[in-house]
């Protein structure tokens, strides 16, 4: 397997102890730890270049604007966008999807129109559409999951017709690790005139993305799940879609002219960036994609695949443990949800934490998916570039202690 463990020194938090044990951080699907390069970029901005962007004709303001727009260009290049102007900075994936739901869906959906989602969507790609459906009279329909924890693409013919105006699909399930066939779904959506909105919150950190090849109309992702800071994310949109979309928020920065009763909008992407943006965070985002690009996203993916394969094999040795998700590492990302006998996931999380192992327990903001699985909660171990086989081994050891405490044979 590829060895990225040399990177670990870039992540100061990984050298601390938790409850007397060296930290094993297995919750990167919730948020990732940060390398010193990202921290330094943000620190340097505040110390040496800080000013507001897109205003003020003085040197600092120009430097700040340059750094902010440089970050946009890096994020755009990271997903192979044709130009930086196709990338709108948002607060994160959730706000990016809301920008589309309110900027596009609210104005175009009509009673009887449909929004097609999958049952494995994160709440961030469900609730905004429910809200907009309530305003417009559109209805939500769902692509089910098949027995292999994959989006049931054979059901597409039955639900995808001209009534569907929006298809929302995750690029990688935050619970199952499933990698849905996004390009195939986007192509089918285009056939019926629907737009495709990809929730790439997990996809962008783990897989190489080429938005020009993907065929979707919008793609949303968050910096904090890919080594960057919280409070910043990106919405990529096809240029014609962004041009024709209404702003979801109004205020400073996003206008060309304001009269007492009407205003005209700034060009894309500023049209969608009302108010002072999180400038330092955008710069940190740029440093994060630089860091990932220096590793290479193919390498990031290989590392994740290898770790997932190793962890899945080790988890299969644990009596009473059930993994939810596609079998085999090649068909999934390095996000592994599981249950262990009758031990509730929250008890597991506590027991593992006492041994320095941080995992997530709960419904992972995917209640419809958990209902489909007939579960209220799962435990989830998610791996990223800084994780190692040793981390997976520590997880297995900690699960052994959970079995002992609960008397699971």
């Amino acid at each position: 397997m590829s060895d990225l463990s040399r990177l670990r020194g870039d992540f100061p938090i990984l050298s601390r102890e938790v409850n007397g044990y060296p930290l094993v951080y297995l919750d990167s699907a919730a948020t990732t730890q940060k390398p010193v390069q990202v921290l330094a970029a943000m620190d340097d901005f505040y110390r040496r270049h800080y000013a507001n962007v897109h205003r003020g004709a003085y040197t600092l303001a120009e430097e700040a604007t340059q750094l902010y727009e440089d970050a946009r260009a890096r994020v755009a290049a990271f997903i192979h966008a044709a130009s930086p102007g196709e990338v709108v900075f948002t607060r994160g994936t959730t706000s990016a999807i809301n920008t589309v739901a309110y900027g596009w869906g609210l104005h175009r959906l009509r009673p009887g129109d449909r929004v097609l989602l999958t049952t494995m969507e994160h709440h961030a790609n469900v609730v905004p559409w429910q809200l907009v459906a309530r305003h417009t009279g559109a209805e939500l329909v769902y692509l089910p999951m098949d027995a292999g924890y994959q989006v049931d693409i054979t059901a597409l013919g039955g639900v995808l017709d001209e009534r569907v105006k929006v298809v929302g699909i995750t690029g990688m399930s935050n619970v199952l690790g499933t990698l849905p066939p996004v390009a195939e779904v986007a192509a089918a959506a285009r056939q019926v005139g629907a737009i495709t909105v990809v929730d790439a919150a997990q996809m962008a950190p783990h897989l190489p993305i080429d938005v020009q090849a993907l065929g979707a109309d919008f793609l949303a992702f968050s910096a904090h799940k890919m080594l960057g800071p919280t409070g910043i994310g990106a919405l990529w949109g096809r240029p014609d879609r962004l041009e024709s979309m209404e702003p979801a928020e109004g205020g400073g920065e996003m206008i060309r002219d304001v009269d007492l009763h009407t205003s005209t909008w700034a060009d894309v992407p500023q049209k969608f960036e009302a108010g002072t943006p999180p400038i330092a965070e955008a710069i940190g985002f740029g440093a994060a994609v630089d860091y990932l690009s220096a590793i290479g996203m193919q390498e990031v993916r290989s590392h994740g695949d290898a770790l997932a394969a190793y962890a899945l094999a080790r988890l299969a040795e644990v009596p009473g443990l059930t993994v939810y998700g596609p079998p085999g590492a090649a068909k999934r990302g390095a996000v592994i949800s599981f249950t262990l006998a009758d031990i509730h996931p929250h008890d597991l999380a506590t027991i593992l934490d006492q041994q320095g192992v941080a995992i997530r327990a709960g419904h992972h903001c995917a209640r419809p998916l958990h209902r489909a699985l007939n579960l209220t909660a799962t435990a989830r171990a998610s791996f990223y570039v800084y994780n190692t086989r040793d981390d997976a081994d520590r997880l297995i050891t900690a699960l052994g202690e959970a079995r002992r405490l609960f008397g699971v044979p």
Partner: protein
Amino acid sequence: MSLDDLYREVILDHYRNPRRRGSLEHPDAHAEGQNPLCGDEISLDVALDGDRVADVRILGRGCSISQASASMMAEAVAGKTLAEIADLTHRFKAMMEIEEGEAGIDEGRPGAALGDLEALRGVRRFPVRIKCADLPWATLAEALSGLPASGAAG
């Protein structure tokens, strides 16, 4: 604080064999509690005989701490007066450091004995789990709060 102190045998016993499980056909009081963070759920029915809890039945699902706490609570409050339950609720919350004043509690008063509930004392060293232990008590307080002069609202 070791995990063995948290996951005491008596807690696992109540988790796996919950007492007074079920619901009542005609409860005098009912409440449902949820911990949205972790999805723990409690549904609680109470039957009264005067100011005494004649029966209490609980359905729920969730972690061992929330479900064991519910089971122990149901055993502890059945047959007690509302005043005694108020006293017990205070004792429990004081033990969990949700309320002040554990030191001042008079062990000789009726309804004082925490019994099996003592096993939950270790939970207070795990701050994120205190809510789990408290969920059934908060649900009980809500159920009883609608009753005249209950005094049990915690």
